[in-house]
């Protein structure tokens, strides 16, 4: 971990070489809006384009996405120049056209003065509900959970996550990591009466032996036991009562 000093919005700050500019900014209390980046997922980011900033390096200035632009010596970052604000606003307007129902995007857009986009909104067949196609869900499923139950499908406007052939995924363990990772709350997950419904499948929940609350899908317990060799008894109790 090589520490270097860079400049963000005129301030000298410490950062780690090759760390994303977004993280360096956040660690130094500088806020940059971002939707599709997850600090635990190396391949995440670069999709929503909300985190744009101006990067000046080697005398060259350009607009880059801070979530995957690496910190290197001599870098100067400006997070809210007129141009950055204008382009970011433009991106948010387009996002709002895609997911007019998303509270997150609506809130962010309104901060930039957009309450209604000037362009047509996606509806009917093109309505992907709140999904901004950032693929955080599929990355979590593949890289963190390790089951690859869902993947990004189609291209262009049609791009969206889904299970293979839109059939119930046999690989899915119902863990809900995708739903937690989703920045816009686009993935529907419902827990009711000891049953979790996600991606069109129902999962029976295992209950805590102390409080009796169903807290984890049985399939997830099986998966963890199978892949890590963890003692099954460990899952008798929910995290609150372990």
């Amino acid at each position, binding site marked *: 971990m090589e520490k270097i000093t860079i400049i963000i919005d005129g301030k000298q700050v410490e950062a780690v070489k090759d760390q994303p500019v977004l993280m360096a900014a956040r660690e130094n209390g500088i806020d940059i809006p971002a939707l599709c980046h997850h600090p635990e997922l190396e391949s995440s980011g670069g999709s929503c384009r909300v985190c744009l900033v101006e990067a000046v390096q080697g005398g060259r200035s350009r607009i880059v996405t801070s979530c995957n*632009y690496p910190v290197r010596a001599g870098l100067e970052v400006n997070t809210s120049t007129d141009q950055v604000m204008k382009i970011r606003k433009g991106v948010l307007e387009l996002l709002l056209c895609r997911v007019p129902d998303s509270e997150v995007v609506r809130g962010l857009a309104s901060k930039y003065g957009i309450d209604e986009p000037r362009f047509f909104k996606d509806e009917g067949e093109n309505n992907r509900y709140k999904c901004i196609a950032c693929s955080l869900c599929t990355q979590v499923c593949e890289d963190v959970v390790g089951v690859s139950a869902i993947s990004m499908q189609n291209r262009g406007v049609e791009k969206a996550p889904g299970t293979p052939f839109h059939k119930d995924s046999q690989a899915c363990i119902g863990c809900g990591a995708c739903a937690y990772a989703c920045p816009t709350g686009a993935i529907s997950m419902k827990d009711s009466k000891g049953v979790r419904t996600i991606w069109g499948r129902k999962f029976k929940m295992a209950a805590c032996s102390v409080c009796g609350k169903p807290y984890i899908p049985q399939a997830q317990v099986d998966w963890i036991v199978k892949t890590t060799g963890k003692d099954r008894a460990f899952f008798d109790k929910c995290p609150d009562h372990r």
Partner: protein
Amino acid sequence: MKAITSFEQLEGYRERVKAAQKKDLPSVLICFGTGCQANGAVAVAEAFREEIERKGLKVDVNVGFKTTGCHGYCENGPLVVLRPKDVLYLKVKPKDVPEIVEKSLVGSEIIEKLVYKDVNTGESVAQYHEIPFYKYQKRIALRNIGNVDPRSIDDYLLCDGYKGLARALTMRPEDIVSEVEKSGLRGRGGGGFPTGTKWRSCRAVDSDVRYVMCNGDEGDPGAFMDRSIMEGDPHSVIEGMIIGGYAVGAKQGYIYVRDEYPLAVKNLQAALADARAMGFLGENILGSDFSFDIRISRGGGAFVCGESSALMRSLEGKVGEPRAKYIRSVEKGLYDKPSVLNNVETWNNIPVIIRNGADWYASFGTRGSKGTKVFSLVGKVNNTGLVEVPMGISIRELVEKIGGGVLNGKKFKAVQTGGPSGGCIPDSEADLPVDFDSLTQAGSMMGSGGIIVMDENTCMVDVAKYFIGFLVEESCGKCTPCRDGLPRMHRILSDITEGRGREEDIETLTELCDVLTCAALCGLGSSAANPVLSTVRYFRDEYEAHIRDGKCPAGVCKSLITYSIDAAACTGCTLCAKKCPQQCITGERKGAHVIDASACIKCGVCKDVCNFDAVRVE
């Protein structure tokens, strides 16, 4: 074939192949490019074989016979060339073959009906190199295509093949890089990045593994220069890559070929096998301590797969989707190793640069763009096809001299260059030299070298709409500006062409262009503004005519035009009335006819069939 393990052996072998050649044998060369094959070249070749045999002649004894790669003049295929007289026959059919063999191969007569006729002068030209389409070309990249049988490594060796490699192996790798730098060669895949600089940066990164890759994805609709090179002269690409591998320190190369190019794959595979057998690939090439091999990978199909980061993902077996390139691929490319990706034509130039020297190469072209470039010249122009010219030739020369001018004597309006995300350059700028920097300054780009000629009957708003429509379909959907911005741009353009344009549209479009250019993830999105910005820049009045006056000046946009018949010019021949699919033209024989505008679907059939130019479009 025993592998060649020294330069002396290579030259010895070359001499033996040369000696075995019967020079000045009357020969027939048949174009076996994809275009000519589609037009029936296979049957023509078969007819030649039969006819030669029937006449009791023997190939390689009395006559020469060869099938070659694409000559670039595909619309006139199948092409047949006769050597040594250098006669070109066009649109040859199997039934023409006996006459050709009798009169032109055995005899020395020229068959008038098969030679090129200049549409402008009416003159016939039989000599290949005197035909305007070829006369003004300078063929460096296409040096061998049409002369060699792509399946014969001996043919390639006869054209000084693998001499560049032999020379390279006597040089220090860094000197090769310097030579390429000095040649001024810039990437032919679109970006125009200096090739030598790319190689140098790759060498500079510390790593024990490096890769070189060839981009043969060629996704631009209508472009086929890379296909022609891979099909027609596969060894030139392979030789270039071996030299590149040696120069940057790679042991493995990959050729990424578009899946729709089966013939390119076949010819490359055969060439790789031959090169391996002769010792140009594999361990200890030509007795040196350099080892290198090449694998072919078939493309993922999408246009965006040609983009460098998507291509590398695809080569790794993942989904071919672009990713951020803030860390360049010369540093972390294929499998995160330092990698060099170059276009087919870029690689194909390397052997001649090394063989003839950087100064020789740099003597062609302009200050900032050295050498030649292959273009695919299409659209409303008399001669279409693949042409190679020195960088810096003007658009007008390309269109008028090589292209033989605009079709049907219409007025030249613009050229669109650079593929779907290129731009349009108007007649008023047609003296512009065609090179990387001039095209970019003019609001277009070199791209892979597509040039579409447009005449006065082209609506520029419609053109912008067409290209944006293409890009909407090809957007991978990963990033917001491209995925969600392009369809909105397309909607605005559709509105304009359908009479729903609003005063603020041009400005809104420009704003959207700005978002795409600055914020899109990959080159597809960030260059997608060109079709709109360039047409707004040069043809703003046309946009305004659509928006303000509800008129399409070029008479293309159906919602904005009406068809009528000029009573004074109409002779009452009734032809249009007979042809109208709507049956909405009425009138007496020998009397002026009238179109019922309410039923007219503006198909334009009446205008096309009228011999008296009486149909008006407004």
